[in-house]
């Protein structure tokens, strides 16, 4: 049965877009067309970004900020230019609020460490509380567990409803006068849920807690405006948004970045150094010790240009249509249970599911034999699997180049899996 509507509205011109991604033409397993549905793990890289990386290494590879020669000046201009592009992409009030890290995990660890070392009023210590949620990626759980263990602070979290959303019914008890920081994911990488930022931020502001938003699954897929979010820190990662690996972003409010202490020490982050003490460069350099990932930052800048040229609102509309179609088709598969919201409302394009009692590893392997790449396991969000009483899920996740035909291929593939193990 094929229930594809005659026209899906809001789809991008994927035929044109796919030409920018050479890898999407790859054949796997003796000539099968690659159907890449693992975009929540990492996205593919457009030609424009690949070319920018080569261009850097072929023409102006140099260390930044220190040289006086042509190459160093060009590399510095490229690296700092990428910062301008990222700042504009997230509507940051100032470019100096954009810190380059190596990935979202490092960004989140950076915040947790700053708050552990900070002076009042930001200091997290034994009389204070940290709030996260049960749907966080391990990258937004473990740094806070470490901070809690090291400082004696109490770690609390929001639970989940049966339909895969945050349970905010006890928000007043979870976020209290003792709460110093609330850190949560904007779009879940396992459930796909888009979380209600406003309600959480409002409560956090009432009690004077800082707000950290993990936008790793949001920045690639929808317009993200850090001013509209009203958060204090926003973290995301380059390789999920058409950029290279090895580059992440932490945006932080300027006055906080001025007040908070550095985390890593080294070159680049200082003003003066003597054998007794040092003074630090202003943000963002204060938080960028050592030689940064220069080519990767430049690549991310080009990725941001690429996404902007297509339009984040158009990408959002495309993925919304794809999600609606994919959920509808997946729910036609017998014994398939979607783990997460079962409508496309307030939902991103990562769809987790179980298929009867066929283990996700078997599902993933048999799909792979057909050229279909999905993710299986707990997706670095093991508490979510525990919450829903499942060992693991299979996850299909879409991006700007994904097509309804790929959804159909997935559904056919799952039918094959069922017959195979049935």
């Amino acid at each position, binding site marked *: 049965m094929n229930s594809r509507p005659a026209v899906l509205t809001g789809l991008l011109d994927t035929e044109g877009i796919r030409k920018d991604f050479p890898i999407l033409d790859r054949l796997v397993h003796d000539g099968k067309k690659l159907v890449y549905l693992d975009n929540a793990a990492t996205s593919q890289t457009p030609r424009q970004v690949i070319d920018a990386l080569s261009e850097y290494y072929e023409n102006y590879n140099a260390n930044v900020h220190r040289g006086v020669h042509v190459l160093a000046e060009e590399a510095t201009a490229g690296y700092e230019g990428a910062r301008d592009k990222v700042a504009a992409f997230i509507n940051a009030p100032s470019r100096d609020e954009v810190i380059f890290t190596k990935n979202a995990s490092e960004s989140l660890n950076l915040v947790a460490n700053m708050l552990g070392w900070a002076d009042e009023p930001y200091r997290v210590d034994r009389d204070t509380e940290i709030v996260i949620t049960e749907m966080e990626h391990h990258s937004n759980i473990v740094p806070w567990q470490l901070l809690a263990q090291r400082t004696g602070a109490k770690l609390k979290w929001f639970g989940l409803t049966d339909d895969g959303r945050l349970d905010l019914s006890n928000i007043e008890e979870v976020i209290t006068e003792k709460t110093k920081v609330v850190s949560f994911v904007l779009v879940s990488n396992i459930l796909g849920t888009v979380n209600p930022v406003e309600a959480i931020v409002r409560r956090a502001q009432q009690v004077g807690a800082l707000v950290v938003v993990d936008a790793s699954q949001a920045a690639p897929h929808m317009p993200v405006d850090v001013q509209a979010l009203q958060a204090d820190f926003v973290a995301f990662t380059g390789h999920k948004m058409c950029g290279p690996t090895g580059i992440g972003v932490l945006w932080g409010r300027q006055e906080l970045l001025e007040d908070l202490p550095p985390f890593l020490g080294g070159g680049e982050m200082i003003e003066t150094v003597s054998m007794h003490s040092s003074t630090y460069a202003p943000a963002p350099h204060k938080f960028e010790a050592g030689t940064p990932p220069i080519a990767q930052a430049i690549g991310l800048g080009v990725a941001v240009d690429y996404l902007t040229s297509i339009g984040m609102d158009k990408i959002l509309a495309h993925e919304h249509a794809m999600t609606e179609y994919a959920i509808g088709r997946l729910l036609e598969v017998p014994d398939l249970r979607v783990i997460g919201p079962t409508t496309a409302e307030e939902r991103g394009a990562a769809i987790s599911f179980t298929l009867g009692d066929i*283990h*996700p*590893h*078997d599902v993933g392997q048999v799909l792979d034999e057909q050229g279909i790449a999905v993710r*299986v*396991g707990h997706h670095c969000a093991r508490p979510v*699997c525990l919450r829903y009483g499942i*060992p*693991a899920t299979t996850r299909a996740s879409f991006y700007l180049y994904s097509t309804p035909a790929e959804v159909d291929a997935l559904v056919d593939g799952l039918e094959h899996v069922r017959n195979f*193990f049935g």
Partner: protein
Amino acid sequence: MYQDVILDHYKHPHGRGLRDGDAEVHHVNPTCGDEITLRVKLKGSTIEDVSYEGQGCSISQASASVLNDLLVGKEIADAQRIQGVFLELMQSKGRIEPDDAMEEVLEDAVAFAGVSKYPARVKCALLSWMAWKDATAQALSVEESV
């Protein structure tokens, strides 16, 4: 990778269910959440029973079933030799093409040769075998201490 032999054992496992034993172990494979509880019952130097209960992918479940077939009724020393050969096959990264001599020793377990090409799945195939090794060592040490 999914040989018919493997699928048959997965769909119709041999010797599944927990029965009386001299030692019990619980092993998990943290990367995919496969789990097994396994008991070994010895009678002198013979393996009288290997019983197990678990959940996980077809590879881990089928492997436990094959293990039960192969090891129950064997002398411990022979079983250890079989385990050694299976381990060697699984760690071969697809480079060992089982010959008749190996098939003589491993019987249905040669079907797992293809799995050794998939590093992520080797642990699934070895889960029950590692559990068996552990449980047998425990059963033997219990025996010695009485």
